[in-house]
């Protein structure tokens, strides 16, 4: 019985080590934050965005939907334009993509991308003709 437990423990350690090879050893896998497109500048410093992006976006969405104000400082489209992954072209498609990587770590379920495109406009336009 003890050998079985040891074997399970070993297997778990091995599989965790395999999937999180890039991670420093620790009990919790840290989110892999993909870097934004080179040469782009975020609208606020990272520590502000990490803490307050949800408030910025929620405030802006009412201004945009009800007031018709577009092109303001904060916008979900703006986030996606810089933070879409070069691999998947999206911020929410793969587990490692910008929005999903942190939100799965923090166990916060976001439904933004049930309606909003998770890809920049050019990526959607390219896909269309076929």
């Amino acid at each position, binding site marked *: 019985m003890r050998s079985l437990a040891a074997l399970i423990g070993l297997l778990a350690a091995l599989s965790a080590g395999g999937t999180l090879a890039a991670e420093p050893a620790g009990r919790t896998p840290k989110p892999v934050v993909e870097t934004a497109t080179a040469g782009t*500048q975020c*609208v*606020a*410093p990272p520590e*502000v965005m990490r803490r307050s992006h949800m408030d910025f976006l929620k405030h802006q*969405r009412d*201004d945009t*939907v*009800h*007031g*018709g*104000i*577009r*092109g*303001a*400082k904060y916008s979900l*489209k703006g986030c*996606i334009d810089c933070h879409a992954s070069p691999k998947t072209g999206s911020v929410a498609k793969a587990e490692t993509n910008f929005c999903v990587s942190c939100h799965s770590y923090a166990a916060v379920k976001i439904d933004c991308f*049930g*309606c*909003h*495109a998770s*890809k*920049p*406009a050019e990526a*959607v336009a390219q*896909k269309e003709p076929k």
Partner: protein
Amino acid sequence: MSRRGFLGVAAAGLAGVMLAPGIRLIEIAQAAAPTAGASPKVRWGMLIDTTKCATGCTDCVTACNTENGLDPKPSPTSAQWIRKVEIKEIKTGRASSVPVMCQHCAEPPCVDVCPTGASFKRADGIVLVDRHSCIGCRYCVMACPYKARSFVHEELSDQKPDVPRGKGCVESCTLCVHRIDKGEKTTACAEACTRAGHGAIVFGDLNDAGSEISRRVREIQTTQLRADLKLDLGVRYHGI
């Protein structure tokens, strides 16, 4: 150091100077000004001249579907923002083809019945659904006399970045609000109709006496659908 050299160095230094915590001069220069938003002085509307609308032509419907990322091959349960209705007076046999979409009422029944305030009218007369607060009850679908609203039954993918839409929400014609907010002067359906050579749809500001739509509604007889309901529609029809 020469005077010119000193100024050059000072200017270069200034670009990176922090004006206030987190704000640099260079960021102010990069930020584009936001649009002014919906103005209460404007009343967006459409004039549909059914004498010019061709039976069997569905260019407006196709253009709407493409512009807003709707189902290109609609099924009976797909969302539909604009549809072609063929009408015929039985006694005389006179037939017309009529595109029907959200009529953007000044007194919208969908807004009256919405339990969450998701269905609303913008300052410029465009009636919209705020999907952030829509709970999908479909009361507005029942209330609309024009059957203009649709419910999204299934999960969607590859939406247009300018037109977010998704499962569990009600939606309808937005008068191409994403275009209008950017300052464009026409909707996808009106553009397609003009391109097809019919010119049956005119979009514009009903409050601007100098606009084409105001001039046309002043000159020709126009009808509001179900005018007896006194909803003061933004869409007017000629020739029915």
